[in-house]
């Protein structure tokens, strides 16, 4: 394959460095708006799709998108069917055993969601006392709240995310602590139109989840991608794209 490309390059009389490298970006074939989704005509749209294209352009990489089933996306990377994964993949130690991540391009904080007119401050004991705070059981959010309030606050415990969001809409609870990325679908839905992120968890004991692009281990393109990401962050392209999809700082980290 490489040989063919080289032969072709030579045949057309092009010097190798001038040839932009072709990279296939694997993306979850299931829609995950606003991060990514595929239209009926086969084209990909969404924040991650645009961002990846911008980064590739800045890094002089020639990228195309390809839909891959989520549960087979890492094997697809390992077998060279795709060259990187830009599909809201959270950087976890377990994944780092098999793939290598770029610098994070999105961080997902835990956010307190509530009615847009509700006055809320997680650090004001008076407000907390008069707030009905809900969280899903068995999540790290629950651990965090229990830790933060030392069990002094009555939390409403839910079995599932959709149940607590239904009760939030019904007004039975005031505020829900939830992952930001997992809440985007609700916040952009008709039901959630009167709700917004009232506050964000800013606590060094509960760092946000970070999302990065996944590559095969030792891939030289990681450094190029990181450079490209740095460029789009610095020249404002990142914000330009992000502002189309989000009304908050989706990067959530100090910019390089």
């Amino acid at each position, binding site marked *: 394959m490489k040989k063919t490309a080289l032969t072709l390059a030579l045949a057309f009389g092009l010097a190798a460095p001038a040839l932009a490298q072709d990279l296939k970006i694997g993306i979850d074939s299931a829609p995950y708006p606003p991060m990514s989704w595929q239209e009926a005509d086969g084209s990909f749209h969404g924040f991650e799709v645009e961002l990846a294209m911008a980064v590739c352009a800045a890094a002089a990489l020639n990228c195309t998108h390809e839909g891959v089933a989520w549960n087979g996306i890492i094997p697809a990377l390992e077998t060279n069917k795709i060259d990187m994964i830009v599909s809201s993949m959270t950087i976890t130690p377990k994944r780092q055993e098999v793939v290598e991540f770029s610098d994070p391009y999105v961080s997902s904080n835990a956010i307190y969601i509530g009615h847009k007119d509700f006055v809320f401050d997680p650090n004001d004991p008076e407000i907390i006392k008069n707030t*009905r705070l*809900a969280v899903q*059981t*068995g999540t790290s959010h*629950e*651990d965090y709240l*229990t830790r933060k309030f030392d*069990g002094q606050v*009555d939390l*409403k*415990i*839910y*079995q599932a995310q959709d*149940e607590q969001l*239904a*009760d939030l*809409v*019904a*007004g*039975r609870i005031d505020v829900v602590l939830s992952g930001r990325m997992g809440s985007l679908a609700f916040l952009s839905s008709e039901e959630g139109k009167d709700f917004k992120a009232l506050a964000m968890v800013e606590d060094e004991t509960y760092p946000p989840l970070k999302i990065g692009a996944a590559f095969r281990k030792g891939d030289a393109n990681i450094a190029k991608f990181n450079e490209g990401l740095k460029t789009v962050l610095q020249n404002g392209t990142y914000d330009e794209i992000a502002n189309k999809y989000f009304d908050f700082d989706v990067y959530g980290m100090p910019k390089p």
Partner: protein
Amino acid sequence: MTALALPTRRRLRKVMPVYRMIYIAIGLATLYLIVTGLSWDWLPKYLPKLWTGFQISLAIWAASVIFGFLIALPLGLAQVLSRGPLRWLSVAYCTTLRGTPLLMQLWLFYYGLGAMMTQIPGIRSTVLWPYLREAWPFAVLALSLNFAAYAGEIMRGAFAGVGRGEIEAGKAFGMSSTKVFFRIWLPLALRQALPTLAGETVMQLKAIPLVATVTVPEMYAVISQSRHDTLLTYEPLLLIAGIYLSLTFLLVQALAAVERRFSLAKR
């Protein structure tokens, strides 16, 4: 062996036969293994919550049994007295509520009816709102209505089972219909229904953990939270099994005492 010791030993054997001693020994050994062999260091942290949960569980159980029973009386009576729409209504009620899962009813009341009520304009500024926001009123409502269906069926049989002669005797004494009902019909029916009703209240007690699914912080909710926090499987579940077993045991003993007090055999 003296002649005197023999009857004592016989009596002892009657109270404490060998098989019962073996049972107790196995039970104590199991308990010992559970207490010493498993980890319980997580427990003190959850004890205050567990105690609150325990009280909530008992309160919901008691409220649903009382309200349920009060609804059951007219339900049973309607099926015995009426031949028209009242009877159909009450038969339909009992059939529907007994024929569908309690968990489903609970969810229909909380996530269905309860959530719908919150959308009524202006309801959030009424005095009822603090209660309508809560989960426990819906839990009590669903459990009461469900208990009423079972108890109503029992009371129907009990009312029908009271001899006509006793009621007619009351009437012959010049008692009004109300007086006959409260002095003769109801007490006799209750006495007959008591063992079955007692069984129902025990069943009701064991239905209480279901309300944890609609966010009521009762005992099982605390247990399941502790399981999520500690990643333990057996200890919290064994603990709640033990609590329910003890509660059921106490309840059965208490109800048996009531039954003995009003037993037909003593008549």
